[in-house]
Each structure stands twice: as structure tokens, then as C-alpha cells.
């Protein structure tokens, strides 16, 4: 952890709280990648992810006075993004499928792991229930431990562990069996 950087962000937060908009812009820039990625992988399309990202940061504008530190800010952003995405998904009868032209956005171009494995994982992730998907994203995208995930999603720790265990077991079975997953359908 870089203390200087943390101090810098806390300093920007203090300035943003006192109405300095340039400082707010820096905070938005620092956190937008996390919020957008979470929204994109929860909701599956760029348009929906952009809408949610925008809504979350607009909401932040009104809540800024209540944010006490940069840690708190990160926690609040993840909490609001994940919960609003879960609500949206619950309102939809079926998860909207991801189109091929957006597929590349769901995964980082920087990684060099097996693209086929990623394709399987994408299919499996989008097959999960919204809460289970949020748990996996917070675990593997945001690197949160189960306790932090439980706090973020306001979920019992055992439920978080259960989601992680069951989801990984399912993935292991499907991938080791090399069964064609539903991701094939999603991408067409």
C-alpha cells in the first residue's frame, strides 16, 4: 500500500467535500474503472453499464459529505453499484445476452490466459444468479475477501462462502469435463 497515494486521495476527497470540483474529477477518474467493470460484468452490456456508472457517480455527488475517507468511498461505490445491478437483474426476466461486439470488453486485453477458458468462464458467470455473480466479481475482480464481500452485499458470511464454493465447483466440473457451456449460446 502506498501511503503517499492514499494520503493524496484522502486529500482530494477533503477538497471535493469542500466543493472543489477538480478534486472530485480526480476521485471519479480513480474509481471509474472499478465501478464500470463491475457494472459491465453484472449487466452484460456497455450501454447498461454506462448508465449505471453514471447513476452511481451522480448519486455520489449528493452523498459526498457523508464519505469520510477514500476507503469508505471505494466501499460505498462498490456497494451501490453491486446492489443496484442486482436490483436491475432481478427486474429482468432473463439476463440480457452479451453481443459479440461487446464481448471483448468483458475481459481485459492485457491478460494472456487461455481465451477459450475465458469464454467458458464468461458463460458460467452469466449463468449465475445475480447475487452469486456479484460475489464472484467482488472476489476475483475487486480482490475482496469473503468478509468484505459479506459487508458490501449485506449478506451473511456463510452465504458468501457458499456462493463461492458452489460456483467454483460448478465451474471446475464443467471446465474439466470440457462440456460446451451455455456461453456458446450467449455469444451468438
Amino acid at each position: 500500500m502506498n501511503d503517499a497515494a492514499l494520503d493524496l486521495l484522502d486529500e482530494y476527497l477533503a477538497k471535493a467535500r469542500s466543493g472543489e470540483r477538480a478534486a472530485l474529477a480526480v476521485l471519479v477518474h480513480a474509481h471509474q474503472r472499478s465501478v464500470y467493470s463491475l457494472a459491465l460484468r453484472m449487466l452484460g452490456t456497455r450501454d447498461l453499464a454506462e448508465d449505471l456508472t453514471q447513476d452511481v457517480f451522480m448519486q455520489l455527488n449528493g452523498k459526498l459529505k457523508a464519505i469520510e475517507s477514500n476507503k469508505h468511498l471505494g466501499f460505498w461505490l462498490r456497494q451501490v453499484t453491486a446492489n443496484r445491478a442486482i436490483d436491475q437483474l432481478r427486474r429482468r426476466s432473463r439476463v440480457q445476452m452479451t453481443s459479440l461486439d461487446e464481448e471483448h470488453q468483458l475481459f481485459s486485453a492485457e491478460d494472456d490466459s487461455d481465451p477459450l477458458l475465458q469464454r467458458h468462464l464468461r458463460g458460467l458467470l452469466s449463468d449465475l444468479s445475480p447475487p452469486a455473480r456479484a460475489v464472484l466479481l467482488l472476489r476475483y475482480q475487486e480482490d475482496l475477501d469473503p468478509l468484505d464481500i459479506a459487508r458490501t452485499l449485506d449478506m451473511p458470511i456463510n452465504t458468501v462462502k457458499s456462493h463461492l464454493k458452489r460456483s467454483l465447483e460448478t465451474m471446475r466440473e464443467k471446465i474439466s469435463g470440457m462440456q460446451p457451456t451455455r456461453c456458446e449460446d450467449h455469444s451468438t
Partner: protein
Amino acid sequence: MSQDIESGMRAALRPVAPSDEFSQKLLAQVVADPPARSKSFRLVSQGARPLGWWLTASLAASLILAVGIQQHLQEQRLRQSGLEARREVLQALQVTSQKLNLAYEAVKSQSTSLAGEKPGV
């Protein structure tokens, strides 16, 4: 195998950046929006009753004039505030990418220990 899947998940779920176009629009919108806007106000209380037509008319005219002036001033303030916000956004965008990367890395490294600190706003 589980470890393979976990490392595969980590690789597959690395955060991705939004498009530059969206990012710029987001920054402009968030920064230009005042944190707290006062709600619209009523010109006359609902229970008020005029004494006569002329009195009502003159009162209404005065109020319209006052509101008009106030709106005009407010628009001027908002315009000025918008220009100021735009200037500040441009200033913010001039922050070196090194600083922003540093900030982003700090956010990432912080993520594992933050949730317990504040369970919500």
C-alpha cells in the same frame, strides 16, 4: 484445478476501462452538477386568499418580476458556475497520468481491507 479456475477468473476479470468518450462525458457531468440543489419553491402559500382582483394582480406581477429577476440571476450564476466547472475539469484532466495511475493502484491495494471500516452511508 480449483486454483486454475481461480487464477483464470482473476485473469479474465481484470478491470476494464470505459471508453474515453464516456469517461470524459462522465467527468464533465459529475463535476458540473452541483452537489445539492434546493427544491422548487412555492410562490404563494396554498391557503392565501387575495383581498381583491387588483391586489392579486399587482402582487402576482411583483412576484413574477421578482422571480424573473431571480431566475435571470440564477441562470447567470449557473452559467458562470458551469464555466468554472469546465475550467476545473480541464484543470483536473491535466493531472498527470502518473498521479492517476498511482491513485488507481492505491484504490486497488486498499480494496481488501476497506469494507469493515464503514458499512454504508
